[in-house]
């Protein structure tokens, strides 16, 4: 599904990712942990194709296709989704309208028909209900005045409606209360199947306890320095990142 090879990324002339390797198979879930400022969000933005994230070396293959050639909207249509660490407020743009426009734009790019608006609304309402979100949020401007937790849940609603092949969730758990965290985890788990893959960026073991990822990686200073199974997350939770300094860094793919 996704193959990242020796990825070097510069932002404003500063190298942030310094030779990152990662491979994710169809249906797999990988968690990425790592200290603040290590480059986790940079990886997400680079995958999504944000301007200013310059690949200076290496490449990213998504279903065999080099992502560098694709605009953000083309990546979205190809099935890539990034839930932002800080979802953006869009004043004046109705949430439901935006979501339908996004879905239709993707479908059009794939040569599919537009969604039926009744069916669309029904699907969105179901997602809102599952995430215990107020339906009134549909009529409000995108993320404007949403609480921190509502913004994060809104990202999951978008993901569920857009049905990506690969979803990158950047700290979707931070800022959620304990119940909301569980709802979000359930929302993610509902979408899991043998074809759909996930990259879950998080600082906490709690979310991973619900999601049970197949692999856990530690990103530090722009590289994957440690990879393992779920027990790695538990160890990090107990010991912090300090032990990483004591061990030689291992280049790690999955």
């Amino acid at each position: 599904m996704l193959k990242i090879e020796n990825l070097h990324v510069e932002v404003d002339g500063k190298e942030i990712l310094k030779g990152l390797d990662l491979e994710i198979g169809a249906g797999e879930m990988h968690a990425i942990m790592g200290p603040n400022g290590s480059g986790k969000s940079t990886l997400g933005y680079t995958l999504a194709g944000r301007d200013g994230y310059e690949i200076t070396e290496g490449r990213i293959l998504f279903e065999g296709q080099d992502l560098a050639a694709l605009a953000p909207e083309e990546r979205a249509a190809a099935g890539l989704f990034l839930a932002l660490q800080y979802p953006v407020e869009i004043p004046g743009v109705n949430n439901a309208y935006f979501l339908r426009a996004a879905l239709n734009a993707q479908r059009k790019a794939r040569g599919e028909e537009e969604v039926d608006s009744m069916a669309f609304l029904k699907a969105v309402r179901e997602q809102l209900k599952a995430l215990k979100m107020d339906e009134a949020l549909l009529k409000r401007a995108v993320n404007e005045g949403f609480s921190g937790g509502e913004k994060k849940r809104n990202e999951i609603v978008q993901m569920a409606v857009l049905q990506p092949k690969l979803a990158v969730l950047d700290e979707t758990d931070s800022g959620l209360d304990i119940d909301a965290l569980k709802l979000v985890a359930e929302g993610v788990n509902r979408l899991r199947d043998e074809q759909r893959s996930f990259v879950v960026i998080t600082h906490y073991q709690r979310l991973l306890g619900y999601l049970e990822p197949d692999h856990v990686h530690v990103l530090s200073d722009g590289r994957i320095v440690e990879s393992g199974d779920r027990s790695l997350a538990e160890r990090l939770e107990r010991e912090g990142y300090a032990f990483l300094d004591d061990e030689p860094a291992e280049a790690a793919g999955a």
Partner: protein
Amino acid sequence: MSALLERLAPAAELPRDGFTELRSQAQKVLMQHGFPHRKTENWKYTPLTLIEQRAFAGSLDVGTPPAPPALPFDCAVVHMHNGEIDPSATRLPRGASLTGLVADDVDVDALVADGPNDAFAWLNLARLGQGWKLVVDEAVKRPIVVVSTVDADFEGAVHPRLHVELAPDSALTLVAVQTGGGAGLHNAVLDIRMSERSTLLHAIDRSGGDTAWIEHATVRVAAGADYRAFISDAGGALTRQDLRVSLDAPNARGAIHGVATLEGRALVDYHTAIEHHVGPSESKERFRILADDRATGVFNGRILIVPGADDSHSEMNTGNLLLSENARINTKPELEIHAEEVTASHGATIGQLDDDARFYLRSRGLSEREATALLKYGFAAAVFDDLEPGPLADWLLERLKSRA
């Protein structure tokens, strides 16, 4: 400039009628103060050279006007074509009536000559031909839409005048749909008088075309009355709107929500004033300009709270989007507060489209063009947040979407 005066307001020539006296009074004021020139502060961004260059020769052939554009909501339409209304084609809801203006309707003594600032309003009076008075006696549900159009080859100068009078406790939704055409001058005056506790929702949707579109509007708001304007303007060769809202008695309220979406070489110049003459009174103003290509947008918003108008509250917010290097936006809020215990605030921002927001939309699948259009629309539409949902709001927003 006197050449312009000669061309636009030649002494005499109009037939003698009930307005003759008024016209000559106005003509005198106009001669004395003249038209605005480059140094007239209030007009410095409006390129009057464009008007000076025009001949305004074409005589107006008032044939059968074309049908006005259809509107997607239930309403009564008054069609003004080339500055004239055909009353026989007009059907108003119960409680509203449209009659010809008579000289007594114009309180010329109340019009103070403010140097050359109001020259076009005086010109309107000096050349007054057809004037109309819309009287509203009760709460009228169906919106009344005044559709103003001019011919595509219209090159003359017309000076229509509309007075609107709202009786105590009456209510009206008045929508002005204005579409310009040929390179003439459409120089209108709108005079609104609101009695006690009346309410007026005043929507304006305008695109001026090649026509120099000038409107001078005055709204007098009595005790407990409530005036709200919702304006969407795409500008044109030259579009100038003066809108003065005078809160004359306790508990009067006035609000102006406006947005100008400009592209090409469009120009819009809004000069608004909200005057608090007594307290308690309340006003609110929100204005946004989006300027692309080589367009120019001007907004000058004056809030005046006179001495003694205590317990008056006013809030103004302006925001602009500069979408091209060659576009220009000039925004100037002017707060003049002379009373005690008032709150008045203003915020003004000029910005470009937000890169974070654009990336967010694109990451969800919208093309760069779609994302930009949606962000422009969102920025513009926020001005109409205070408009209650319904067919009128839907229509205004749909129009805005087509312009974003």
